[in-house]
């Protein structure tokens, strides 16, 4: 385990483990924290995992971790590593098993007071219409060849099937479709796992929330992205389901064989990787994009179910129950991007494992509606606490390969959370606080107790203070749906 003697503060909220710390490091390792978060970081093995990522062949500048860093497997959660093209590596473990796990934020024209009497009915409608939990299939039946089209076109598939609007796609990272996805690089077992899970939430830390916009920090930015005080909004947090999990498992297995051919040595087998220029690397990139597109389609179908739920619960009771998309982001992905390295623009593969792309104003890939203000960043907090809407900045482009935090970050193991919190008691406490809960598993609810997480407000203050995102709005939950 690293100690405070192994790193130094190089700027406000920014610490560096020098490359000299370990002989196999190819670049230094940097992480963002304040004094309190730093204590938590030293409490598990996340910094050691961060140092391990600094050994990846082709890594440039530095390996990074956001202030929500915590122990994962291979990469720490909150890790960002950029590897140079063409011969740097791509690591499936640097993306994670839930490929394109991400967050979608939806806005409404409703204020809290209008919806308050109907929240319980809305919670029930959402729980009924949005399948959740282990082994639950979705309502969408795919015809022969349709899963392959879905994987190759993502949210465009959903648009053709009537599950999306053009505005939804415009307000989705990559327009909801990662180019270069190839269904042929995805195994039959992965397809089998994904075939009946389109439009499902899953279990674990995934959720749907109905929220209220509690505080605005940047009025003009909030107005631009369609947020206002006391507004009802909705968050979806989920990813590529069994299909993505299997894609990662398949390529971690394949790379265990091929890594010896490329003569690569790593400190942890979960970091296994292949050169981006290799057939294995190219196949994984195409399969990862296919799974990423599946995730975009999944969140899009859930959006359709949410719109239906709003209609069911609110039609005839409020004036306008229309639900529109604010933005949709990925926080488990690897992407080929151009960033400045050694004073010149270079093509790199940016791995974000529990980190959010946060492109600043002017980035050409942003939709026209947001290009001059920067990319919206969605940071869900722990259940029952706050979530945040941020914007990408110039600082994120120069400091973090256009990346920022993705959530609160755990501090307590699931095991310990279950020992110290009873799910039913937690549900009652949240209900008493005015939050409507629908959950399939009380033990799963206990594992996600707020006490198991860092303070998301503190995490956000660090990224804001460090200049790698800026605060726009804080939202709080009124309804929580969990598998």
């Amino acid at each position: 385990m690293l100690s405070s003697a192994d790193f130094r503060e190089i700027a406000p909220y920014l610490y560096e483990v020098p490359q000299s710390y370990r002989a196999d490091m190819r670049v230094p390792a940097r992480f963002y924290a304040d004094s309190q978060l730093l204590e938590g970081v030293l409490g598990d093995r996340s910094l050691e995992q961060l140092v391990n990522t600094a050994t990846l062949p082709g890594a440039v500048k530095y390996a990074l971790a956001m202030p929500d860093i915590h122990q994962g497997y291979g990469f720490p959660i909150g890790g960002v590593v950029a590897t140079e093209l063409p011969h740097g590596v791509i690591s499936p473990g640097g993306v994670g098993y839930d490929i394109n796990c991400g967050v979608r934020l939806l806005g409404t024209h409703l204020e809290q007071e209008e919806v308050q009497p109907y929240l319980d009915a809305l919670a029930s409608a959402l729980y009924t219409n949005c399948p959740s939990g282990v082994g639950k299939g979705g309502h969408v039946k795919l015809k022969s060849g349709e899963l392959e089209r879905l994987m190759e076109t993502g949210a465009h598939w959903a648009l053709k099937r009537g599950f999306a609007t053009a505005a939804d796609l415009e307000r989705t990272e990559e327009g909801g479709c990662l180019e270069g996805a190839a269904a042929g690089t995805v195994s039959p077992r992965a397809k089998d796992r994904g075939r009946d899970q389109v439009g499902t939430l899953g279990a674990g830390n995934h959720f749907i929330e109905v929220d209220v916009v509690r505080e605005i920090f940047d009025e003009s930015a909030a107005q631009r992205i369609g947020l206002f005080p006391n507004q009802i909004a909705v968050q979806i947090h989920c990813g590529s389901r069994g299909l993505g999990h299997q894609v990662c498992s398949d390529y971690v297995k394949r790379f265990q064989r091929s890594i010896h051919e490329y003569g690569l040595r790593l400190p942890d087998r979960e970091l296994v990787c292949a050169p981006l220029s290799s057939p294995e690397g190219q196949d994984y990139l195409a399969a990862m994009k296919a799974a990423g597109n599946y995730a975009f389609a999944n969140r899009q179908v859930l959006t359709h179910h949410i719109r239906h739920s709003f209609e069911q619960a609110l039609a005839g009771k409020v004036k306008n129950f229309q639900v529109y998309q604010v933005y949709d982001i990925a926080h488990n992905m690897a992407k080929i991007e151009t960033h400045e390295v050694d004073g010149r623009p270079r093509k790199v593969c940016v791995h974000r494992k529990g980190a959010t792309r946060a492109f600043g104003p002017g980035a050409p890939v942003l939709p026209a509606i947001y290009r001059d203000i920067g990319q919206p960043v969605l940071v869900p907090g722990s259940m029952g606490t706050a979530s945040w809407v941020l914007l990408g900045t110039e600082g994120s482009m120069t400091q973090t390969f256009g990346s920022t935090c993705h959530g609160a970050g755990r501090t307590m193991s699931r095991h310990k959370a279950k020992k110290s919190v009873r799910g039913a008691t937690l549900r009652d406490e949240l209900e008493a606080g005015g939050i409507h809960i629908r959950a399939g598993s009380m033990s799963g609810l206990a594992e996600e107790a707020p006490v198991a997480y860092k303070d998301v407000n503190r995490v956000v203050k660090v990224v804001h203070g460090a200049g790698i995102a800026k605060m726009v709005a804080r939202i709080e939950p009124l309804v929580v749906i969990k598998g």
Partner: protein
Amino acid sequence: MGRKTESRSRPNSEPLDFEEIEHTADWALRITGSNLEELLCNAARGMNSLMVREVGADGSLLEKPVELEAIDAESLLVEWLSELAYWAEREMLVFERFAFHALTPTHLKATLYGRAVSAMEKHIKAVTYHNLKIAPTARGLEATVVFDV
């Protein structure tokens, strides 16, 4: 890695077969066995303990044949548990008894016996290679497996 938090032993107080250990984000098990076959059985039972409280005796006993190839014993352990996690996700099947017909560190042929359950406590998304090493001990073999949940 981490400290021992809970142990489960067989009723006749034979050596520990698996125990949960601390992991911030996911679940981890330390597994022991006198040989590779026992290690695989105990790993399966350990994973079952994460997924369900008990299998129960309701429902018909089902069997599935399985044959796996891997590059080494650690990979075989990951493949084995991944196979069981797959059936848990797809058909809510939990296997408790295993008949091995062939077993080397790189190849496995077995029949799985188990039952469908009505609900799962936990979804195992994947079985990871994180710091995975099957190490010899005085009593046989030991490995720590981290699960993505």
